[in-house]
């Protein structure tokens, strides 16, 4: 065995360890697309929240008069159903687009989209997000609306950190970014939409672009 063969063998070992334990088809475009959806969603939400600020039941006014009092409920607000609909549509659009770009990439690489690695990735991210979702619903029922945006950011960030073992490791930096944004938001409740737009929108786009630059810009043959 000469040096070249030895290096080849080590490269093989490394690549097999990665490919068998990590889902590496996650596309940077998925991040950019999800971030774009988040910004569009936040823009609509902003319009809904600030519509008719002269109406006493406008979300903004109601929130300012009874912030997280515990006895306000969501249906006191004008436009609450539009707001929930916007949130659901944003989530659905972001997931769909993220899925499409990753599907395209996994087909290019010839790696099945649904395999043992993507299953573990979905589980590692899905559990914290599902738990977080239930927790947000309870927060909404309790009237603690100011804590919902930071909660989304915190649970999602923790989910990403836990998922980073099963995909390209850089995603943990996105996770830490979301967690920090969420923590900061905890101390500025009432501005949740801006923190939310920064975390889910800007951070996703920046992360997606960096991942594309690092891993996809040059067509790979692996």
């Amino acid at each position, binding site marked *: 065995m000469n040096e070249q063969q*030895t290096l080849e063998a*080590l490269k*093989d*070992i*490394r690549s*097999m*360890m990665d490919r*068998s*334990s990590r889902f590496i088809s996650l596309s940077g475009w998925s991040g950019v697309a999800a971030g774009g959806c988040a910004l569009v969603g936040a823009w609509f939400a902003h319009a809904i929240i600030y519509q008719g600020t002269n109406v006493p039941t406008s979300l903004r006014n109601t929130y300012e008069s009874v912030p997280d009092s515990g006895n306000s409920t969501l249906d006191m607000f004008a436009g609450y159903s539009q707001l929930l609909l916007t949130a659901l549509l944003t989530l659905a659009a972001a997931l769909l687009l993220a899925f499409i770009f990753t599907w395209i990439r996994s087909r290019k690489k010839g790696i*099945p989209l649904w395999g043992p690695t993507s299953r573990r990735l979905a589980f590692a991210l899905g559990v914290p997000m599902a738990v977080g979702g239930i927790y947000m619903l309870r927060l909404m029922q309790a009237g603690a609306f100011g804590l919902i945006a930071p909660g989304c950011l915190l649970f999602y960030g923790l989910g990403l950190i836990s998922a980073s073992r099963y995909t390209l490791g850089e995603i943990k930096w996105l996770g830490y970014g979301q967690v920090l944004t969420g923590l900061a938001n905890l101390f500025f409740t009432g501005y949740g939409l801006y923190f939310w737009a920064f975390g889910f929108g800007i951070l996703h786009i920046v992360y997606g672009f960096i991942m594309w630059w690092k891993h996809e810009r040059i067509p790979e043959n692996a």
Partner: protein
Amino acid sequence: MAIPLNISNLNKVFDSRIRLGIMSALLVNDTVSYNDLKDLLQVTDGNLASHLKGLEENGFIKVQKGFVGRKTNTTYSVTKAGERAFKQHLDALEQMIRGTQQS
């Protein structure tokens, strides 16, 4: 510039790329199914089966046969002996590279 060292530490069993691949995948996963190994390594059934058999006969991997519904589902995992042998093999590879860099 001859490299006299440690050839003896390289394990003949791990000479083939496919066996290296199998061991690498098994070291970072608790169990890997036959079909997943086939996908990962992109090899034919006969080829994969014979290498798996070779590793099994050396006591480096264990086989668990089971069923998912009606289909057979064979999974593999690495044994303690296999882990030790593979790590020695890696150490030997590392030393070979160190050796060539120093000379």
